[in-house]
Every structure is written in structure tokens, then in C-alpha cells.
């Protein structure tokens, strides 16, 4: 059941899932190794569905999946995965009458930490790891959105999981809370696998060693953030006015326009970012489908 240091933590192929007539995932295949992997994609791309499948919360209609060396289709495999998994859902729920400590302690019981002393030590450890040691006695209803998110992260960290799945963990956080969260996730990514779903390309650049782009239920890209940015090489340019022919065009802080798309002859090219590469990939796909 154990995973070797070099083997993939998650191996998925042909994952397909429908919600009624809507095809949420279509033959999704990817592998996940140690470190932080970003899952990028527009709204409705299937990110949450994919994360829920990997986290054993959802069942695909077909496909193969191995998580941490186990097959979640079997009861014993699912239990083995869950014992080594931490999952932070997109919209985590809480019992508002519980304190932060009580809630994480409740999740710790569900994570089979039955020895009271060991469990309380573990709860204190994870609350400290997310910077909530001072707020442990505070009722969840009295905590800010960012603090609640950290309570949910603390619950996900119980038992020091080998695989951590975070579904848009920074949505709704202010910039300071986001930076704080980023620090915590970066630290967590050392020595374990983190699969992080996000809308924010700067988060991918700051945190992720690898990135998967999901669009309309299919994997459009799998590689490093640098490779993703390189997709837009030679297709990002600047000028003094708007370029209607560009895929995207906006006025930057410098006062000049930045364009992504096919540049005119002699354009002043710029070094592409992850965002540019992502834009090229997603918009190009949209264009291809529009003309198909």
C-alpha cells in the first residue's frame, strides 16, 4: 500500500463523470507526485469534481484511479486512502457552536485518534501550524472567514497526511490572509503532496512545482508553471494603444497596453507569465470549439 519516493501519489486515467446530461469530466488522465501541484481552470471546468473524486468523496462513472498506492473503488482501499489524506473542501462547513479546538477535536475522533491525550496534542499541533493557537477556545461563529478557513485547514492536517487536497482555499480571503495562507501551504508542500485548486495564476507561480489546467472537463495542460508560461512565448506584446485583434488586451500600470494573442509584425514582445499561458490555452480552446 505504501508509495515509493519516486512513484506517483495519484495516478488517474479515463476518469469520466456526468451530472445528468452534463459531462463534468471526460477521460481525465494525470499523475501527481510529491510537492505542490496547482489545478487551474475556469468556473465549471470540473476542478471541484476532480478533487472530490481523488479525495474519495465522489465516485466517477468510469475510469481508473490509484491514490497513495490504493484503489478507492474497494472498501479497504478507500479506508487506506482516507487514513493518509487531508481534504479541505471548497466550502467547508462547521458547527458554529463549537470552539476551534472542539471542532478539530471532533474531526480528530473521526480520523480515528481515539487516545484523548494523543488526540489533544495533535489538535494543538495543527492549530499551532495554522497560526490559531491563541484562538483555540473561541467559538467558530465568532471567527473571521480567514480564521474559519484555517480551522478547516487544521482539520485537514490532522494525522500529518501524505496527500493534502485543497479546493480553492484562498477564496474570500483578504490579501493579508491570502499571503498568510500561502506561507502555510508552502511549508506544507515540503515533504508531502499537495493538490491545490485555484483561480489565481499568481498563486500557481508562487507555490506550485507543477500545474494541471482543466477546461470543460478535460485536461488541457500538465507540466511546470514555466512550461505553461512558455505557451505564450512570442505572443505577448506591448504597445501604446488597444489591439482589437488580440485575445486579451488591457492597460497596465505603466500606462501602456499589454496584449496576448498573435502579435503584429515588429511588435515589442514581452516575457510571458503563467497567466498569459493560461489565457492562450483556455481562450484558444474556446475559439477552436466556437469555430468547430
Amino acid at each position, binding site marked *: 500500500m505504501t508509495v515509493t519516493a519516486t512513484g506517483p501519489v495519484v495516478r488517474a486515467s479515463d476518469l469520466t463523470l456526468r451530472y445528468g446530461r452534463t459531462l463534468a469530466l471526460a477521460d481525465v488522465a494525470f499523475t501527481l507526485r510529491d510537492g505542490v501541484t496547482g489545478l487551474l481552470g475556469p468556473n465549471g471546468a470540473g476542478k471541484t469534481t476532480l478533487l472530490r473524486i481523488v479525495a474519495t468523496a465522489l465516485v*466517477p462513472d468510469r475510469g481508473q484511479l490509484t491514490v497513495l498506492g490504493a484503489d478507492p473503488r474497494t*472498501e479497504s482501499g478507500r*479506508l487506506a486512502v482516507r487514513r493518509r489524506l487531508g481534504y479541505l473542501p471548497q466550502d467547508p462547513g462547521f458547527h458554529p457552536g463549537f470552539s476551534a479546538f472542539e471542532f478539530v477535536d*471532533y474531526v480528530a475522533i*473521526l*480520523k*480515528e485518534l481515539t487516545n484523548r491525550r494523543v488526540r489533544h496534542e495533535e489538535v494543538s499541533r495543527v492549530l499551532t501550524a495554522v497560526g490559531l493557537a491563541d484562538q483555540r477556545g473561541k467559538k467558530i461563529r465568532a471567527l473571521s472567514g480567514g480564521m474559519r478557513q484555517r480551522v478547516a485547514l487544521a482539520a485537514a492536517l490532522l494525522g500529518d497526511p501524505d496527500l493534502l487536497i485543497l479546493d480553492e482555499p484562498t477564496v474570500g480571503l483578504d490579501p493579508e490572509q491570502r499571503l498568510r495562507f500561502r506561507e502555510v501551504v508552502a511549508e506544507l508542500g515540503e515533504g508531502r503532496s499537495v493538490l491545490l485548486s485555484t483561480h489565481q495564476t499568481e498563486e500557481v507561480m508562487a507555490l506550485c512545482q507543477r500545474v494541471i489546467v482543466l477546461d470543460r472537463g478535460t485536461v488541457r495542460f500538465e507540466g511546470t508553471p514555466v512550461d505553461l508560461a512558455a505557451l505564450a512565448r512570442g505572443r505577448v506584446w506591448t504597445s501604446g494603444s488597444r489591439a482589437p485583434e488580440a485575445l486579451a488586451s488591457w492597460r497596465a500600470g505603466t500606462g501602456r497596453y499589454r496584449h496576448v494573442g498573435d502579435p503584429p509584425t515588429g511588435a515589442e514582445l514581452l516575457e510571458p507569465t503563467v497567466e498569459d499561458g493560461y489565457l492562450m490555452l483556455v481562450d484558444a480552446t474556446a475559439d477552436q470549439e466556437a469555430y468547430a
Partner: protein
Amino acid sequence: MRGVSVRVVPRLFRPVARAMPWWTFLAAAGLGLAIVTVPAATAVTLTGEDLVGLLRVAAVCGALGVGFLLDDPAARSIATVPTPRPVRYAARAGVILPAAAVWWALVLAVTVAGAEDGIGATLPLGGVTVEAAALGGVALAVAAVRLRGRPDSGGLLAFPVLLGLVMAARLLPDRMALFVPPDDTEWARTHERWAVLLVVAVAVSTWASQEPARRWTAVARRRRSLVGHRRS
């Protein structure tokens, strides 16, 4: 559920009891209790049939409240813990059943105490208790089905479904009737139907509490057996 730590279960009761949304149940149960208190609190003289009617109204009230007790705002946060959903539901049931039993015992005690001399002893308390258990079971089953695969409010579905079923039961033909007067010759046979309803409700609740992954396993098994068939 091989390999699941059974030591988890006793440790779950306290936090689960604290986490459950009691207010709706308490309000509904309080209303049911208030209804059966009427004969004792007033000078109205009620027959045995009237008292059974009041007990049935109280049972419906309690069942409507019970339907909300499976609601869990933290369902998403605990969806992938190693303690599987059937065990988590069992812990909830372990809290709900004693609470509901104590309430129902109180309802019966108040009804008997408020009855005119001699009438209390003739009330068919066993039969009405089977009806109350079946109504509560149906409410829990509908709520469990609603909560299968999505964190939501089970009570929001159980409430109208249960009310609808009670209304529909009133319209059933005599040979299928569920609510009959205590002196009706069909009383015993009717309560066999109630018992069947209770068993069905428990079976549905058990099915609905299973992990969704069972479907995948079942599909995989079916495909394997189909492949086996084709190969053989």
C-alpha cells in the same frame, strides 16, 4: 466496514449530540407534548378514540422534528474521514433514538394521566407507539435519502413528504387504511402494515447511509462479471 476502528463510536456520542440541530426537534416535540396536555389542562372530556387521535398528531409532530436531526453543517468537512458514513449515522441514531424514546414516553404518560378514569388503561399504547416509530422512521429515511451524496437539509424534504404521506394515508381505501379507530376490527392487521412500514424505513435509512463509493464498486463488479461472461 472491515478495519474501521470501533473504538471511535463511543467517543462520537458526545460531540455528535452537541453538533445536532436540536431546536427544530425540540420545537416540534414541544408542540406534540402541548397537544396531549390539553385534556389534562382543561375540563374537556375526551374518548379513547379522541386521545388516540391526539397521540397521532403528537407522533406526526415528533416525526417532523426528527427529520431535521440528520442535518449536519459540517458534512463537507468530514466527507473523507476514515470513519465511514454508516458509522457516523449509527452514532447519530444512537443519540436520536433515546431522546425520541424519552419524549414519546413522556407523551404517553401525560396522555394517560390526563385521560378520564378508566380510559387511560384502555388506550392501545403499543399500537400507537408502532405508528409513531414508523412515522419517525419514514422521516429519517427520507432525510437520509436527501442527504445521500450532498450536504443539505434532510428535514426540508422529510417535512413535506411526511405531511403528504399522512394526508394521503387518510385517503386510502378501508382495506389499506393506516389510521383506524382503536375499536376497529382491523386494528391488528393495520398495525402489521405499520410494522412493515417501519422495517422498510429502517432498510431505506440503512441503504441511504452507505458511502456513495459502493455504487462504483458495484459498477466495477458488474463490469467484471460482464467481462467474465463474455470471455467464458
